[in-house]
C-alpha cells in the first residue's frame, strides 16, 4: 500500500468537509465582519437531525439511499431555520454594538446549542446508520471507499454551485455588494437584512451537508462533535483568508492535507514519540503560524483593517 497517496486521499476527503464548513464562517465574516462561533454547532445539529430522521425512516423499511436523501433535506432545512434564528435572535440586535459583544454572544449560542443537543440526544455516542454502499476501490496502491468518493464529489458540486450563485446571480451580486458596502447596497434597493438572513441560511445548509458527511464517514455522532470540527474549519477559513470564498475552499483542502500527512508521518519524524493521535495539533499549529506570518491568510487582503 502506498502510504503517501493514501494520506493524500484521506486529506482530500477530510479537507472537503473542512472546506464546506469553512465557507459558512467566511460568508458570514465577509458580510458582517463577525465570526460566528456557533457555526460548528450547526454542523452538529445537522448530523443529529439526520441521525434521528434516518433512524425513524429506516424503521419503516424505506430504501437506505432514499432515507439518506430525505435525511439530508430535513437536516438542511432544520439547519437553515437554525441559522436564520441565530442571526435574528443573537446577532441582529447587536449589529451596531462593539465587536466584542457579538463575539461573546456567538460563544454563548454555541454553548446553548451544545447543551440543548445534549439534553435532546444524550451524552452518548450514537452509531450513524450506514446508508451508502461501502465498496472499496484501489487507486494506485491506495484505498478509497464509496462514502469518501461521494463526499468529495458532493463537496465539489456544492462548492461549484455556491460559486455560481455568488458570482453569476442577482442574489450573489447583492451578497457581494452588501459585504463590501452595506449602506451603498441599501441605496441600490437591497434589503440587507434579507441578504444577511439568506447568507446565514446558505452557510447553514452547507454545514448540514458537512455534518452528514463526517457522520457517514466515521459512523459516529456526538453532541460535542461540532466544537473541534468548527474550530478546525475556522482555522481553514483563516488559513485561506477569512472573508474570501476561494480562500475558504483552498484553506479547507490544505488543512485536510496537512493534518493527514502530518498524522501519517509524525510517528517517524518524532522517532515514535508522538502518535497519529496528535493529528489535531496540526490544525492549531497552522492557525498560530498563519496568524504570525500571514494574518490575512493565503488569498485574503487587509483583514486587520476590518477585524
Amino acid at each position, binding site marked *: 500500500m502506498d502510504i503517501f497517496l493514501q494520506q493524500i486521499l484521506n486529506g482530500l476527503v477530510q479537507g472537503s468537509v473542512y472546506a464546506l464548513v469553512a465557507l459558512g464562517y467566511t460568508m458570514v465574516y465577509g458580510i458582517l465582519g463577525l465570526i460566528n462561533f456557533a457555526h460548528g454547532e450547526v454542523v452538529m445539529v445537522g448530523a443529529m437531525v439526520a441521525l434521528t430522521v434516518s433512524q425513524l425512516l429506516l424503521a419503516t423499511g424505506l430504501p437506505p439511499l432514499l432515507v439518506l436523501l430525505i435525511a439530508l433535506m430535513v437536516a438542511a432545512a432544520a439547519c437553515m431555520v437554525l441559522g436564520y434564528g441565530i442571526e435574528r435572535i443573537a446577532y441582529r440586535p447587536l449589529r451596531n454594538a462593539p465587536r466584542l459583544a457579538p463575539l461573546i454572544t456567538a460563544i454563548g449560542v454555541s454553548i446553548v446549542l451544545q447543551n440543548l443537543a445534549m439534553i435532546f440526544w444524550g451524552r452518548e455516542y450514537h452509531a450513524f446508520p450506514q446508508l451508502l454502499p461501502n465498496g472499496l476501490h484501489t487507486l494506485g496502491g491506495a484505498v478509497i471507499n464509496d462514502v469518501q468518493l461521494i463526499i468529495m464529489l458532493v463537496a465539489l458540486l456544492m462548492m461549484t454551485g455556491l460559486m455560481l450563485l455568488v458570482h453569476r446571480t*442577482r442574489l450573489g*451580486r*447583492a451578497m*457581494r*455588494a452588501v459585504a*463590501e*458596502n452595506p*449602506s*451603498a*447596497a*441599501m*441605496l*441600490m*434597493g*437591497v*434589503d*440587507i437584512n434579507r441578504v444577511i438572513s439568506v447568507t446565514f441560511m446558505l452557510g447553514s445548509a452547507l454545514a448540514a451537508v458537512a455534518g452528514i458527511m463526517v457522520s457517514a464517514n466515521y459512523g459516529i455522532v456526538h453532541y460535542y462533535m461540532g466544537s473541534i470540527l468548527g474550530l478546525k474549519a475556522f482555522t481553514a477559513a483563516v488559513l485561506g483568508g477569512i472573508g474570501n470564498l476561494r480562500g475558504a475552499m483552498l484553506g479547507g483542502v490544505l488543512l485536510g492535507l496537512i493534518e493527514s500527512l502530518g498524522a501519517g508521518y509524525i510517528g517517524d519524524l518524532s522517532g515514535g514519540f508522538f502518535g497519529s493521535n496528535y493529528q489535531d495539533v496540526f490544525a492549531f499549529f497552522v492557525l498560530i503560524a498563519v496568524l504570525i506570518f500571514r494574518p490575512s491568510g493565503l488569498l485574503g487582503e487587509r483583514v486587520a483593517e476590518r477585524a
Partner: protein
Amino acid sequence: MNLLEIENLKVSYGGIQALKGISFTVAPGELVALIGSNGAGKTTTLKTLAGLLHPAAGKIHYNGISLHNIPAHQRVHNGLALVPEGRGIFARLTVAENLLMGAYTRNDATHIGADLDRMYALFPRLNERRTQLAGTLSGGEQQMVAMARALMCRPKLLMLDEPSMGLAPMMVAKIFETIRNISEQGVSILLVEQNAKLALEVAQRGYVLESGLVTLSNSAEDLLGSDEVRRAYLGA
C-alpha cells in the same frame, strides 16, 4: 404638484442638531441646487431623504406619499436615488456588475439591457471598462459609475452629493455636462455642491443652507447675482 416637499425637517446626531427645521421643494423635471459651506447639513439632508438617517421631526412628502417609516431600500423602488458623497461604488465588483446593482429593483431583463447600452453610450469611458473592477478606476470614472448606476433604477428624483469632489476641472466639466443632459431628459435632480457657481449655473432654483437652516432661496440666476451668495460662496 411638487415631486418632493420637505417641511420643517429636523435631524440630530446624538445631541447635535444638524438640521434645525428646513423646508424646501422640488418640482417634477426641476434641477434644484442645495449649496452651503462645510458642515451646513447638505449631506445630512440627502441621507435623510434616502432613508439612511431618521428625522427627529418634520415631514417628507415624495411623489404624493409620506416617506415616514419607509425603509431606505423601499425608497429606491419608488424612484428615489442617491449618489452618495464619496460615491459608494462597489470596488470589488466590475463596472458592469455595479451598473446591474443599480437595476437591482427591476426585473425587466430586456429593458435593463437597453438601459445598460444607454449608459455606455452616455459614458463611453465605462464601455471600455465593463469588465474592470470598479475599484481600479480613476476618481472621475468612479463618479461616472456612481451616476450611471443610480440612473439604472430609472429614478424620478436623482440626488447627487458633491459630484465634483476631488475631480480635475476637465472631469468636473464632463460630469456637469452629463448632469445637464440627464436633467434635459426629464429626470428631477437635487444637486448638493460646495462649488456653488457650477451648481447654480446648471440649476433652475437654489437653496442656501447654513448651520442647519435654509437662509436663502431663489431662482439660480438671482442667487448667482446676489451679494450674499457672491461674498460667501463665490469668493467675489
